[in-house]
């Protein structure tokens, strides 16, 4: 009997890296996820289409699509899915595979994530000002008119720090993260 989860398929790869995702093979293609998604209208493919493509083994197209990167992690799809598919978690998995294999077309979202974690790994905390400047100065600055005034507004209300906080145990945290990364878990 043909087993859609047989090792080696893209479907099995995606399921293996996502807790509780065995239910993906029972997808009804009902579209509840795509209908519920707040950023659905801006996605290349709706989550439902992505699942059909995963099943069809369209690895490259799936990983290059903007769909996972446009997931806002609101979990609407997940609590509404009639088949209990952990859709949000699947999106995280697709992002990780795409980053690992550098398979993404639009750079904004992945770069936002990498900038973010860069600060976390340096300081142990996120750093809004640094993040905003580093990210926004390198990413289509023309689109970001108004970001300057916004930063000023926040700064003037004492809601933005110009220097980063750093935790005392940063060395400990780095050891933990290095060990974690050595697991190469996707």
């Amino acid at each position, binding site marked *: 009997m043909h087993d859609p989860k047989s090792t080696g398929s893209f479907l099995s790869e995606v399921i293996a890296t996502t807790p509780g995702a065995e239910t993906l093979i029972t997808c009804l293609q009902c579209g509840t996820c795509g209908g519920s998604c707040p950023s659905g209208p*801006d996605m290349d493919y709706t989550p439902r289409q992505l699942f059909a493509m995963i099943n069809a083994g369209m690895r490259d197209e799936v990983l290059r699509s903007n769909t996972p990167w446009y997931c806002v992690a*609101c*979990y609407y799809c997940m609590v509404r899915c009639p088949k209990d598919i952990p859709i949000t978690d699947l999106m995280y998995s697709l*992002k990780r595979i795409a980053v690992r294999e550098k398979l993404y077309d639009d750079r904004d979202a992945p770069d936002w994530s990498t900038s973010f974690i860069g600060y976390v790994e340096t300081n142990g905390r996120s750093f*809004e000002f640094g993040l905003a400047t580093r990210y926004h100065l390198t990413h289509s600055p023309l689109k970001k008119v108004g970001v300057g005034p*916004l930063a000023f507004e926040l700064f003037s209300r004492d809601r933005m720090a110009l220097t980063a906080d750093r935790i005392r145990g940063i060395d400990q*945290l780095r050891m*933990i993260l290095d060990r974690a990364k050595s697991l190469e878990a996707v």
Partner: protein
Amino acid sequence: MSYAYYPGCSLTHSAEPYDLSTRAICEAFGLALAEIDDWNCCGATEYISINKAGAYGLVGRNLALASEQEGVRELVAPCSACYLNLRKVDHNMGVYPSIEAMTNYALAAGGLHYTPGSLHIRHLLDVVVEDVGYDAIAAKVVRKLDGLRLAPYYGCLIVRPQINGGTADPEYPTHLDRLLMTIGAEVVDFPLKTHCCGGHMSQISAETAYELIRHLLQNAADYDADAIVCACPMCQFNLDAFQSQVNRHFGTDYNIPVLYFTQMIGLALGMEAEELGIGREVVAADAALAKIGSAVPEVAAPRRPRRDDKALPMPRRREEV
């Protein structure tokens, strides 16, 4: 009652008012908060997008540090994203042995260990509603928020996904509604109460986020809300800081202040606006707050038409849990 407190990065800067008001009301209610010593970022929605084991290690360190604190079994987080990350790691470590092994293997590099289930991770809103309780809150109210029309905005992550037996309805919760009524406010039945604020899309695809923010603001305006009340720094940031850009983008003129539920409780308990961090929001709340304590002002009639004799009865709803 004593709690390990995980403020999260936002509450140290952009959402400092949330931190101030949280500490103020917790003190008033006798909830002792012990901040986790040297906590680190929870990874937000970003770390898990890049590295799974790292994301678990990051959160795992916080859980391990909190569980080392003496006499503390409850961990409270006011930020919905932090709350979800902490809760999810604890939950998944408990359910999937491979995840437990992976996380503790990473933590061991820093000399730490976390046993899943050893902490009860809760959102601040749940703690206030469940541990303090509506009656005890009502008993402490000295300044009822009479005449203030508030839109209760839960956002996504307090009620979703349903892990660890969350009790609130993931689509239409009512505990924040009831809390705001308890402190005397008029609560609008806000249909978008659990819809998305845009999350990180404000950084990635502004247009996507602006439309979501606009929709929320429009709905609050349609219901004549004086303010939107939220329980998450991300929600507050997106709705407040981006409001003027949304107005510019769509040619609208929304002017709806966005405040934290802790600030509203603080006001009702008679605290000063300043000690609750009020005044640091981008959209000024002055007009809304001026209403409190004054004679009951004229309130716009509810949008829903009156029922007349011909009307068919409404279905009876299940008892609210």
